[in-house]
């Protein structure tokens, strides 16, 4: 078994490789392999895997990519991620990626799919419309048609149609992946000092750009390590970070939150990898239907899913409670409509529920966050000071 540090370092290198080298190597190792890039938040990666492809998560350039060309495509009052994705594309970092999926999350990502089409980037570009109707016979059927559309594109490239067994096999691999990630979060809920949130982030993000089989074995080793009583507890409060599901905060900012006195016991940074709660049925005769039903019935709440029948504020409050968190940090990418429009809904509800929170905005390319760090530090101090207050959920 490899050392924990070594595993984390490997993950970090994968996670932030804007050339997607690992995916490229995987593709070149065998004929007819296909790479499919997908944007945040969620995409059913299982179907790509089953069709002989590898899904590749594209989460922007962070603070590692200087933006020159991308700015010419986006006005200053649009979030940062579409310009950094354009920059990566125009700088030909994604030449080996065959097609691109833009999941329905907001108008910016949606329109970015059109810009990719216009620029003729990739062999196919698909905006994937997730159903907002949650009846299996309506929304579920539509979702299956959307998945079939993706599979048709892949077939045009490699001639392959996945069998039921192949789809079920892929589902079981991703079930394993999700349960290992959840295991890490479970351990951290009680022993957050065993692995920092920065490490968790690197580990989970790496899984979006390497084969799932390899990620699963890395996760298995990591889980073994953190079962041990490692690290030293520190006097920090526990928080949940919410709102950072698309454009990603820089690694420095993710680290700064913990350094400023908050153990992050849950977050939505890499929401897509954790979107489905529990397993998808891996023994069905109709695996696409199983995936669709899981999306409809077992999804985590998200800004991109219409929620009035299952209010998101209650669901986030439940996460806070279940994780034993002391409060919430609302972190929104600047100009991120879905996150910013959700904020008042959460905050008004939390004021009533007595859940403490702070809110700030960031941009993926900003690596100066002194003010945020101070704000988080003050939040942590104030909670520690008032920890006897009965309104705090613990």
């Amino acid at each position, binding site marked *: 078994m490899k050392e924990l540090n070594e595993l984390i370092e490997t993950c970090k290198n994968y996670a932030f490789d804007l050339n997607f080298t690992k995916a490229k190597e995987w593709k070149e190792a065998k004929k007819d392999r296909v790479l499919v890039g997908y944007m945040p938040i969620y995409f059913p990666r299982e179907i790509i895997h089953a069709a002989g492809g590898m899904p590749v998560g594209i989460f922007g350039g962070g603070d590692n990519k200087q933006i020159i060309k991308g700015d*010419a*495509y*986006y*006005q200053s*009052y*649009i979030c940062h991620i*579409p310009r950094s994705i354009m920059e990566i594309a125009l700088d030909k970092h994604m030449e080996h990626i065959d097609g691109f999926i833009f999941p*329905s*999350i*907001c*108008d*910016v990502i*949606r*329109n*970015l*799919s*059109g*810009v990719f*089409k*216009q*620029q003729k980037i990739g062999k196919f570009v*698909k*905006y994937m*419309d997730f*159903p*907002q*109707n949650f*009846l299996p*016979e*309506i*929304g579920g*059927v*539509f979702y299956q*048609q959307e998945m079939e559309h993706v599979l048709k594109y892949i077939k045009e490239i490699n001639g392959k149609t996945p069998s039921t067994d192949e789809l079920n096999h892929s589902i079981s691999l991703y079930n394993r992946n999700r349960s290992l990630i959840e295991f890490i979060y479970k351990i951290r809920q009680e022993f957050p000092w065993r692995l920092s949130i920065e490490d968790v982030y690197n580990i989970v993000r790496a899984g979006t750009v390497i084969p799932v089989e390899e990620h699963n074995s890395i996760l298995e080793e990591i889980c073994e390590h953190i079962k041990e009583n490692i690290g030293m507890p520190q006097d920090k409060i526990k928080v949940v970070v919410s709102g950072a599901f698309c454009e990603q905060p820089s690694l420095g900012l993710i680290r700064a939150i913990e350094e400023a006195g908050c153990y992050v016991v849950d977050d939505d940074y890499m929401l897509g990898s954790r979107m489905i709660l529990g397993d998808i049925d891996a023994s069905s005769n109709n695996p696409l239907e199983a995936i669709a039903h899981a999306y409809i019935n077992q999804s985590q709440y998200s*800004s*991109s899913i*219409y*929620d*009035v*029948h299952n*209010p998101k504020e209650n669901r986030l409050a439940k996460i806070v409670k279940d994780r034993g968190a002391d409060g919430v940090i609302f972190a*929104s990418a*600047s*100009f991120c*409509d*879905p996150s*910013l*429009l*959700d*904020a*008042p*809904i959460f*905050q*008004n509800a939390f004021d009533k529920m007595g859940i403490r929170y702070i809110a700030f905005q960031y941009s993926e390319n900003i690596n100066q966050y002194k003010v945020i760090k101070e704000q988080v530090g003050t939040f942590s101090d104030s909670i520690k000071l008032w920890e006897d207050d009965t309104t705090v959920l613990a």
Partner: protein
Amino acid sequence: MAQEAQKEKSMILQKEMIEGLFNDLANAKELGKKVCYTFIPGNLSELIQTFDMLIVYPEINALQNAMRKKSGGYIKEAERNAHSEDVCTYVKCDVGMMMKGNIGPTGQKLPEPDVLLLSYTGCFTFMKWFETLKREYPNATVIMVHTPYQENAEITPEMTQYMVKQFKEEVIPKMEEVTGIKYDEAKLKRHLKLSAEAEDWITKIFDTTKHKPSPIDAYFAGVYYIGPINIGFRGTQKAVDYYKELYKEIQIRIEKGLGPITPEGEMKEEKYRLVVEGPPNWTSFREFWKIFYDMGAVIVASSYTKVGGVYDYGWRHNPDRPLETLAEYCMNCYTNMNIPQRIELLKKCIVDYKADGYVTNSIKSCNSFSAGQLGMMREIEDSLEVPVGFIESDLVDPRYFSYSNIKNRLESYFQMLEQRKKMEKETAAV
């Protein structure tokens, strides 16, 4: 000083229609009518009328409030309550208005919704907006209609079926439940027939800009013209009558060789013909328009007038396929078209209406329109070699309308157009 706007019969008709609508809304309870809140793009006007409901369009309230200089205060009110500075200002204006007692733009109180019908066409913010409203009006029945995006520049039978199933299994039963009225397909068909008629007229009206000089402005005046068809009258005889009257008036202008009517009277000389992409600014609408007409610029087509439906390619509501046609209508609104489709449509307008230039008014808080506009502009410039102009403003937030910036930019743009015209004349003379 600006002169009083000239009033034609169609304007009076429209004024009466709108006043009537707000009066009915103020008296909804007394009239025993249920109230449905919904949005313009993808509005299911005919279906709502089939159930005898009155309609509130939150965007219309927001823009009317902006024109009456009330939006700034409402937006600040929303921002004091955790709403970000950087999101759609329509939402904040609406939320602020609600917080201050839900007094509509005409000064009458708006009724609470019985139904929140989210047809969710072409914009994610609509979804967030109604999530917010649902929390304010917990007793309202929520009806969500998911309109698939034309991501592949097409409406497939699967997309239509998905919507039809939603109508059949969710929308119609819920409307029946709220109103106590049984779904009457014959009635719906009658409304759809009238819709198609109004759509024919409005297409003819916007087509009159082919004339030189153009008898109408298809953006600044165009937003008034789309009023009836967009705000609940589509599917009624009133709308048909209004458009017939308007068309008649425009014909007279064409016969007389007249240009468009502006708030300061007739535009005397048509110097530049433009196509505009993006919504207008509402807080300084008159000043904004004036910059154009003072320079002799007339807008011969605009994308904004297509948010409530794109009729340019011949699509009409079809009473023979009532639910399918409603589905197609929703999917066929401008912001539900993908970027290459939007480019094609704008290019068609530039060519068909012989425009000299293309101007983007980029709205700070509307990602649905704005994200992708720069690439669209470049492609239009490259493929048609038409001079492009770019300005930035906002819909209803007065803080983001900088008169001098916009004026300076447009003046330089008009100089560029002037130069281009000169060069073309010189080349033609050689």
